[in-house]
């Protein structure tokens, strides 16, 4: 069967001062939106930089479109569109001048597509990029990323610092992009509500470890927030949870085994669907011993 993973990281390790990613493996499926979530400083940007070959792993392998960077760097990058959370463009240039520089790098650059997005986003072509607001800068990045028929769009925190209206607009554009073709989107965010409407898969990273990659439906099936009185908690029941938050009135806990929680607590506890934020919060709270590693 043809390999349907656009990105594959295998047993990747990378260490810096005070931070490391160890034995990290990840698959990103072709034609889907994968949301990459995790708190600040857990390794999201490092992973994205390794996917873009801005950082080389100390060990392990990174392949994109089934190709490695060692031998196919230009071929891979021709097919990727990128958006970073900071403006990476020459700030003294106008968007029109920048386009003239960037377009020459891409074989499949499409001027008409570029102007379509410029109009759609209301971007000024002749104003210097340094005068752009954060939202405009992200729109400019997105315009460049979408103007060369990229098969994979990699975005690092594209929605951070944006107002809700533009965030919604951005998500709509990504939606449209998916309907139009076979594009794969991989984007990191810590605004998890962005993902509910658009992501097919969620990849969750915590402290340099890949906790899971699951589709939203699967998360709903497996994870649950359990709420109940403190009398329900003992050592055995508490071990079923990733982490527990106790108050004077009761407890609230996250489980990755919803069915078992339903069996154990039955009607005695309230079992609810967790938000992605709940999963992030409790995973951090529960730290390593309770985390079920599952890819």
């Amino acid at each position, binding site marked *: 069967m043809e390999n349907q993973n656009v990105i594959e990281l295998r047993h990747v390790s990378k260490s810096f001062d005070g931070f490391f990613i160890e034995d990290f493996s990840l698959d990103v499926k072709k034609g889907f939106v994968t949301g990459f979530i995790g708190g600040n400083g857990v390794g999201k940007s490092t992973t994205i*930089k390794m996917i873009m070959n*801005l950082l080389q792993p100390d060990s392990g392998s990174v392949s994109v479109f089934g190709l490695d960077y060692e031998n196919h*760097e*230009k071929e891979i990058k021709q097919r990727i569109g990128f958006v*970073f959370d900071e403006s990476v463009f020459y700030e003294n240039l106008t968007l029109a001048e920048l386009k003239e*520089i960037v377009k020459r*790098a891409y074989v499949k650059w499409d001027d008409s597509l570029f102007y379509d997005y410029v109009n759609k986003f209301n971007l000024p072509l002749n104003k210097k990029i340094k005068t752009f607001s954060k939202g405009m800068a992200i729109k400019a990045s997105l315009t460049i990323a979408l103007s060369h028929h990229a098969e994979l769009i990699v975005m690092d925190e594209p929605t951070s610092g944006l107002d809700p209206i533009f965030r919604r607009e951005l998500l709509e554009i990504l939606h449209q992009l998916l309907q139009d073709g076979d594009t794969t989107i991989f984007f990191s965010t810590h605004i998890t509500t962005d993902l509910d409407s658009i992501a097919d898969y969620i990849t969750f990273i915590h402290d340099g470890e890949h906790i899971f990659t699951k589709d939203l439906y699967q998360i709903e099936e497996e994870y649950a927030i359990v709420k109940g009185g403190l009398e329900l908690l003992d050592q055995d029941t508490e071990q079923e949870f990733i982490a527990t938050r106790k108050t004077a009135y009761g407890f609230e806990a996250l489980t990755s085994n919803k069915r078992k929680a339903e069996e154990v607590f039955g009607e005695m506890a309230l079992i609810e669907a967790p938000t992605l934020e709940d999963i992030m919060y409790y995973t951090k709270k529960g730290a390593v011993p309770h985390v079920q590693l599952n890819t």
Partner: protein
Amino acid sequence: MYNLIRKDLVLQSKMIIGLMIGLCVYLFLDVSSLWVGVVFSIAVAMNAVTIDEKSSVHILLNSLPYTRKEIVSSKYIVVLLLTVMVSAAIYVGNLAIHGEFTSLKNLLFMIAIAVTAISVMLPFCYKFKSSYLVTASIVAFGLYLLVVSFFIQDLNDRIRAFVEFLLTMQSTGAYVAFVASIMILYVCSGLVSFRIYKNKAF
């Protein structure tokens, strides 16, 4: 690669025009064209480095379909091109302003000094930042004074004699060897810069 070279020339076009005007002013004032050429060549080279120095720009260049080898080698080609442009401007400027032909030997010597200096500066800038060059220059000057004071007291005379020797060389073979050694130095500098840049994290 061609696109990267073009990008550097486009980004620097205003700066290059400004520098060329400044160069003409110096030539008009009849300042030694050799040293004016060296200073201007180094200035344009450093400008070529600083326009790409922000880490965000490295993220851009390395995310575009270019290899790190292309990014470094294009910079070396651009800097060499700019140095040749400065010497051409001196040649034309001297002819237009003073009506005299600049000796090719002088121009070659100017390029040689500039290329030697740039060969040291570029790897330094890839490893650190160009802003540290001032500190490094002060340290180098301090070392030079130390050497002159305590070890080789006639260093200035030796340098002068060496320059004299180079400028009075008659044989073509000697010139070819001189140019070749400068080019080898430049290529080695490029290899060192590439090695530094290859594993740089952005």
